[in-house]
């Protein structure tokens, strides 16, 4: 990173020269912040901070667009990279001075790596890419950031924008596969997968078949991985769970293998509910199976959501139970017939 004129040099000496002591700034009268007679929760600015920002205020008031103003914004950003007014002013100067933005893109990339969760620097990056239409560094930048934090929301958001804006879809699925290999519970990667397919092939029957199989394999590998189950369910949103081939068989295979993941049980309940919605033949038996699952979730396999699963059971009973309220089977399964079916 370029050494600002105020950093410690290699000898460890502090070579910072205050702006008030720089002869080339003699023409500027520094402007102090004015918080009135009773400032609230005053920030204890360092001398350096006050010096830089006193000069920045003065130069912004003049709306000076010069090399020295540009350098001053760099110091101001270094002290507070979240000051959106400074970034805006910097962009105005860059445009006015017709600066070579290649250097700016490099500089911006350095700040992103130091402050990967800062909104302003990612926005700056996006503007630079919009101006230059140069997308050649963006995929690499986001990968570098994701390497450190695979779920960084800003990185994913920027990547989605770049990929969509410039049609760079080619390598997305392989990136996702790579990330899921490292961590198949990476929800951001799953989300990106949905995004990419949605915007490229779409979930055609053929694509859907593959995606369902892929998701099922992942669910099988890590049955408690909510992300994979959400993806499976998400792909099938437009379909009827009860008639999509192989779903219940897939669930039963896991169930018979003694898997009791709450996501598996919940998904099975979803299928039963869809069967009931679509008007299956044996309503009583199907409802019973669904209610047994609700009870299992509530009492044993997802107890933190006991109240929720009890509510789901009540709702299903209320919606699908045969008119005969004294059906013993369903009453036993839900542990009591006195519950208010409404919330």
């Amino acid at each position, binding site marked *: 990173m370029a050494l600002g004129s105020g950093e410690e040099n290699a000898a460890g000496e502090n070579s910072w020269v205050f702006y008030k002591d720089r002869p080339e700034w003699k023409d500027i009268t520094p402007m102090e912040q004015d918080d009135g007679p*009773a400032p609230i929760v005053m920030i204890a600015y360092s001398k350096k901070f006050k010096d830089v920002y006193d000069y920045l205020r003065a130069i912004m008031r003049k709306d000076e667009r010069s090399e020295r103003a540009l350098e001053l914004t760099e110091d101001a950003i270094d002290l507070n990279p979240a000051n959106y007014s400074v970034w805006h002013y910097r962009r105005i100067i860059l445009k006015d001075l017709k600066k070579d933005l290649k250097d700016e893109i490099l500089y911006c990339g350095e700040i992103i790596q130091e402050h990967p969760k800062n909104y302003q620097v990612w926005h700056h990056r996006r503007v630079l890419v919009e101006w230059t239409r140069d997308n050649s560094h963006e995929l690499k930048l986001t990968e570098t950031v994701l390497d450190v934090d695979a779920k960084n929301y800003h990185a994913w958001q920027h990547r*989605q924008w770049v990929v969509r804006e410039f049609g760079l879809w080619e390598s997305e699925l392989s990136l996702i596969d790579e990330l899921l290999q490292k961590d198949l519970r990476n929800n951001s990667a799953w989300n990106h997968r949905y995004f990419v397919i949605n915007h490229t092939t779409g979930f055609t029957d053929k694509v859907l078949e593959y995606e369902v199989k892929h998701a099922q394999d992942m669910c099988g590998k890590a049955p408690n991985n909510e992300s994979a189950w959400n993806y499976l369910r998400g792909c099938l949103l437009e379909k009827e769970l009860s008639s999509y081939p192989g779903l219940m068989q897939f669930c039963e295979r896991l169930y018979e293998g003694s898997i009791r993941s709450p996501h598996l049980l919940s998904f099975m309940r979803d299928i039963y509910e869809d069967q009931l919605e679509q008007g299956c033949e044996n309503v009583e038996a199907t409802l019973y199976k669904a209610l047994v699952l609700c009870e299992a979730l509530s009492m044993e396999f997802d107890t933190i959501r006991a109240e929720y699963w009890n509510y789901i059971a009540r709702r299903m009973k209320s919606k699908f139970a045969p008119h005969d309220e004294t059906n013993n089977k369903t009453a036993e399964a839900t542990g009591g017939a006195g519950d208010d079916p409404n919330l």
Partner: protein
Amino acid sequence: MEMLSSLDVVQGNKDSLIDWIYSHQVLPSELDDDCRRCGFRGSSTIGAKFNPTQVSCEPYIPYDFGHIAQTYTGLLCLILLGDDLSRLQRVALTRGLRAHQLEDGSFKATLHGSENDMRFVYCASCISYILDDWTGVDVDKAADYIYRSQSYDGGIGQGPGLESHGGSTYCAVASLVLMDRLYTTFSSVELDRIRQWCIMRQQNGFQGRPMKPVDTCYSFWVGATLKLLDAFDLIDKVANRSYILSTQDSIVGGFAKWPDYHPDALHAYFGICGLSLMNAEEVKEMHPALNMSTHAVQHLEKIHLSWRSV
């Protein structure tokens, strides 16, 4: 502090606080720009002179403009402090707000140089609700942006296609409640999906996204969303309370995102709000969409009555 009924700690300074907030109102200037820059500043960094009773910003200060989150926060604080909002230039504020909405229905935070996402849709909704004036928001477009931001997994992201997240889900649902568009935007099946997504965030406390660690503030973001969706009673309150309290710092006080982690103002506030949702003693009841106490909302309602009677 208002939530803890402890505002008397700053009571002596109340008027100074109110003045300081008003000194950040960016008012119309001699520029003929339809109040596009109007709103509240976050701080005096830009060098504006301290003047809590000014009625215009003349001469115009280059690079001076409001920030939607600061406008929201400023208004909220004025209400908490019991101010009557009489020094607000409401028309200028709503005109300013209008200039921040984009074609896709979302909002940016500042006139120049800002990203746009669900956070600012929420700020715009709160501002409009507080000002009792929705002319600054194209509600149809905003509701449509929210609708398109629901993810395949039922939660809501910062924008269409983006990963669903507890914060953006809150912003989306709270905005629709304030706009009175919740039930006309999402079908009952879609609302069920949002509910289930939220319910699934509870591990002991709440996480913000699937497979991420829990964090105290999500007890508010996700908890409040469930309140707004009439499903808060379906959570495990004992586990939630236990988690929030476990993040309390026994030496300096406050709450942190995780146990044995450093506390900060944000997590202290949302920890208290998370407890408020469960009617904890010594904490005021809160309005889950406006993110302030019901006591403060009552004060706002009185102000609204006085505006409407004019």
